[in-house]
């Protein structure tokens, strides 16, 4: 069944888009990740203009995060105070990000920057995950104790704040900075940024893992909502029809993924995810480096 996307202004196969949503949803349920960093490149591969892919994916992540955060909220796994500080940073970062996105779009460089960001982040994260999961698989029998977090210069920063639920007394500048950075990524890459925020919360802020996912989801809702509204206002690139199809597929896929995930070992799962991430990264890199079909490309003036 073909469906015409009103904002992307192209006709796509609704089942194919639904299938992509379900596939990425399955993976995100399986691995407990947001999936934005897989969905946006996939949309670009299908021919959706990168600007529309990024803005629309932000819209879809709002829904995915709302449905995810509710479960964590019930179990009390959301550090509201930490979430608020992250959120302030996130709103600042994502607003700057959308502005930057608009400027890059006018310069004709937005597609390149989106793809370069993906190549950089996917390669780092894919590689780290692969190494980590390999190590975990090999060292399964040995029980290596690891310290929660170490004290360094970051803990000497001013504006200290107490985060009771995370059992932390740290400078508010730290979560604020993390929030700004993740907000920037959300706006430019069309991701929630969980794949950067979760490690940052654990290793940089030293938050207990139990509250990390819930708190990051809480922050992601507001940041992606901010991106959705700002992209709508400045670039008119949010395609609600596309977002709805993805969302529908994503929700169903995630449920199956979560059920299936219980049967596989964690480190093997992470190893598999790392390989998928690296494959997407390789394809993006190839597209940037390989000689294009046509050196000349067109775009509408005044955009």
């Amino acid at each position, binding site marked *: 069944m073909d469906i015409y996307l009103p904002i992307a202004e192209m006709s796509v196969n609704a089942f194919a888009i639904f299938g992509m949503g379900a596939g990425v949803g399955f993976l995100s349920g399986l691995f407990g990740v947001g999936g934005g960093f897989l969905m946006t490149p996939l949309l670009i591969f299908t021919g959706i203009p990168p600007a529309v892919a990024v803005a629309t994916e932000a819209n879809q992540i709002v829904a995915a995060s709302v449905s995810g955060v509710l479960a964590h909220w019930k179990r009390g796994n959301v550090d509201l105070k930490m979430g608020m500080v992250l959120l302030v940073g996130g709103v600042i970062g994502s607003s700057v990000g959308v502005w930057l996105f608009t400027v890059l779009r006018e310069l004709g460089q937005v597609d390149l920057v989106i793809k370069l960001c993906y190549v950089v982040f996917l390669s780092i994260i894919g590689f780290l995950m692969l190494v980590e999961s390999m190590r975990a698989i090999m060292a399964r029998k040995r029980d290596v104790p690891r310290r929660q977090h170490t004290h360094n210069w970051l803990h000497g920063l001013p504006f200290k704040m107490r985060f009771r639920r995370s059992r932390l007394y740290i400078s508010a500048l730290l979560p604020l900075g993390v929030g700004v950075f993740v907000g920037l990524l959300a706006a430019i890459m069309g991701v929630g940024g969980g794949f950067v925020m979760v490690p940052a919360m654990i290793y940089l802020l030293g938050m207990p893992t139990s509250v990390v996912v819930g708190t990051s989801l809480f922050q992601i809702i507001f940041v992606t*909502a901010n991106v959705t509204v700002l992209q709508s206002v400045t670039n008119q690139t949010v395609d*609600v029809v596309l977002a709805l199809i993805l969302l529908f597929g994503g929700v169903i896929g995630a449920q199956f993924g979560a059920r299936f995930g219980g049967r596989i070992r964690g480190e093997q799962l992470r190893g598999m995810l790392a390989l998928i991430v690296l494959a997407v990264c390789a394809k993006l890199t190839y597209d940037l480096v390989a000689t294009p079909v046509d050196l000349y490309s067109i775009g509408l003036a005044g955009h």
Partner: protein
Amino acid sequence: MRQLIPFLTILLALTLPDRAQARDITIDLTDPIVSITTGFTGTDLLLYGAVKQAGDLVVVVRGPARDEVVRRKEKVLGVWVNRDELVFDKVPSYYRIASNRPLKEFMNPEDADRLQIGLPNLDLRAKVSGKLLPEAPYDFREGLIRNLQRIGLYMTKPDNVVFLSEQLFRTRLRFPANVSVGTFTIEVYLFRDNKLQSTATTLLTVRKFGVEAQVYDLAHRYSLAYGVLAVIIAVVAGWAANAAFRKG
């Protein structure tokens, strides 16, 4: 049978003496309006008509004009990057030519140039900071045309006007899914003995219709409300998904 009715109408029109004298060419479309709706995957329209006296026909269809940016990629540190760019002024968003036989066989180059028939004769003007250049750089001009051809918006298949008799003709016009909205002009030129005899023009409207039109309109005219609405839809959908699967 239904397809015959328009031809019969035209035949009738031709046989009436006063009408026949008034026009050398009579043309019409199966539908003067193309509506882009949810299931739109492009459309075919039939242009049909009649000529008073046999001759050679060229059909030229032009879409609404808009400015296009053409960018050239260069390799920078191993990566292909957009470098030089040039803005083209009022480029037809759609351009199609159809004729009953190859243009060279019945049209002299001067006419083709004057009437802008054929891709090489299209008057594509580049502009730099608002001022039109006397001549657009060849590479950029070719790049522009090549890109528009690749996405199916520029087409030249010079042999698909079909004469059903000495007088009756028809041609099929293809409008792909990525066609832009606005007013299209369709011009038909009649040549006899390598000379332009007469012309006929008709208009076609392409518009978004129904849900597609409303979504597009909201996004562009009330973009803040659209953005907020998009967020609300997402929040409700996320909540509903959670509620549905918690029960199940």
